[in-house]
């Protein structure tokens, strides 16, 4: 958690934004309030996340298969290799 003015000045530098002293003090209060609110995510159980990796790869594979001009669904072994050669954007 950043609560010091020094940290906020660091962030100003990172964001390429110049702020006056008055604005810095105002923003410091709001920052802590909002970041506290956003920290609610920490209560989410991460163990369920492991399941998500498989469907993402699976979906990417099917999307390539559906929209790619290269018909690689004929040979399954070949198609899996091709998955990483076709640019997905």
């Amino acid at each position, binding site marked *: 958690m950043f609560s010091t003015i020094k940290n906020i000045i660091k962030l100003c530098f990172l964001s390429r*934004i110049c702020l006056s002293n008055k604005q810095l003090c105002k923003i410091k209060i709001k920052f802590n*309030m909002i970041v506290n*609110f*956003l920290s*609610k*995510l920490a209560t989410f159980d991460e163990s369920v996340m492991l399941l998500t990796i498989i469907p993402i790869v699976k979906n990417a594979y099917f999307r390539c298969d559906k*929209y790619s001009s290269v018909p690689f669904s004929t040979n399954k072994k070949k198609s899996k290799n091709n998955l990483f050669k076709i640019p997905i954007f």
Partner: protein
Amino acid sequence: MSFMKKKQYISLYEASKNLKNKKWNSQFLVKKCLKNIFKKNFLLKNFSLLNKSVLSDAINSDRRRSMKRCLSPIDGIPISIKDIIITKNSKTTASSNILRNNSLTYNSTIVNKLKKCGAIIIGKTNMDEFAMGGGSTTGIWGVCKNSNNITKTTGGSSGGAANAITSNMCLGSIGTDTGGSVRLPSTFCNTVGLKPTYGRISRFGIIAFASSLDHVGVITKDVLSSAVLLQYISGYDSRDMTSSARKVDNYIVDINKNVSGTTVGIPIEYLDSAMNTNGQKTITTLIYFLKHNNIRIKYISLKKTEYALPVYYIIAMAEAMSNLSRYTGSLYGEKTINIKNNINNLSFLRGVYLGSEVKKRIMIGSYLLTSEHSHQYYYHSQKIRYKICQDVKSRLASVDFLITLTSPILPYNNFSQPNSLDLYLMDLYTVVPSLSGLPSISLNINNQKHSGIQIIGRPFCEKMLLNFANIIEKLL
């Protein structure tokens, strides 16, 4: 019992019919709208810029109609666009001081499509700076005032667009929706706001706020008009990589189809004590009406939605930080004067010209993307976003639609603005469809003092959604 306020205004659909029957002409419509703009805009601040060639466009449209070369049903209808949508050789400011002299040399896809259909772009509507805000108050063109009660807010960020419809300044409006920016003002201003599926309408030529959450939406007076307008602006665009190649349905054909037997899901998480009494009343009455019209109701649980709001703000702020880093004065934005000391000059320029809300969001975005915190916040929120999407889509497999309130609060007073955290909480019900890219429509229930309902449909099922919304609108 009927909630729906008696129609005081002409809708886009009715205007289209009257133009076809030659009861009216385009010049008449445009002149009526311009009259209202000149009369009320000084107070309401709905429009930021007006199109100079609006009358000549109307004359051309009438000429086309007389020669039986009408381009589409919306040919000759005055439509406004949000000030974030780029138009060729005219200013697009996004209500920001940093872009106050910004004029680009190309049209956005929506503008091209509207022009191709013969629609008349009457002007650009007021909004929050870079669409960041919930009350149309942070822009450089002034604070939007609700035409139903000028002390109340219009909601945001497409407040000008929704209010322009209510005050009869145009017949249809195009807005953008990142976390509820079309649906919230629609509720507060008594209009219909539709946000289609992500990728249904091209985002090419729209100043980006959060690219993975930005949607283009339509605001009209009724559902039929929304269907007509959506029909002509949706479709694939090769210049937008997120645009969908799916065929566009005909939204108008079966819009009055019987919906009895439909199953509707109501999330129990949204029926908690946090909802005000007005909201509870709305939901109770809605359930009564649905049951009496053979629509089945199923109470469902969306457990992960409690994380939706922080997830939305983390992703939106991180993406906003990245998108807005281009406004440095070199390519976009006000030009820097001192080239020698460029970094200091650039920071000074951004500090002076960007508004406080935008600066705050950029700085929080920087904080969330720093190497120390990105895993804790950004990557974590992306994973939870995926889980929320899966959760909502799996629920939509067992029900046809989800119904929630649009806003947890009623329009607040312009003079006693809530703090920034309370403003963020206004998006409580609208962020779930935005995160999952699902289509949703906001309908108003006037009798309940501006507390509207939101209907969420399956991806790319706008036809079904519009049909259901049209029947619900008639019922209420």
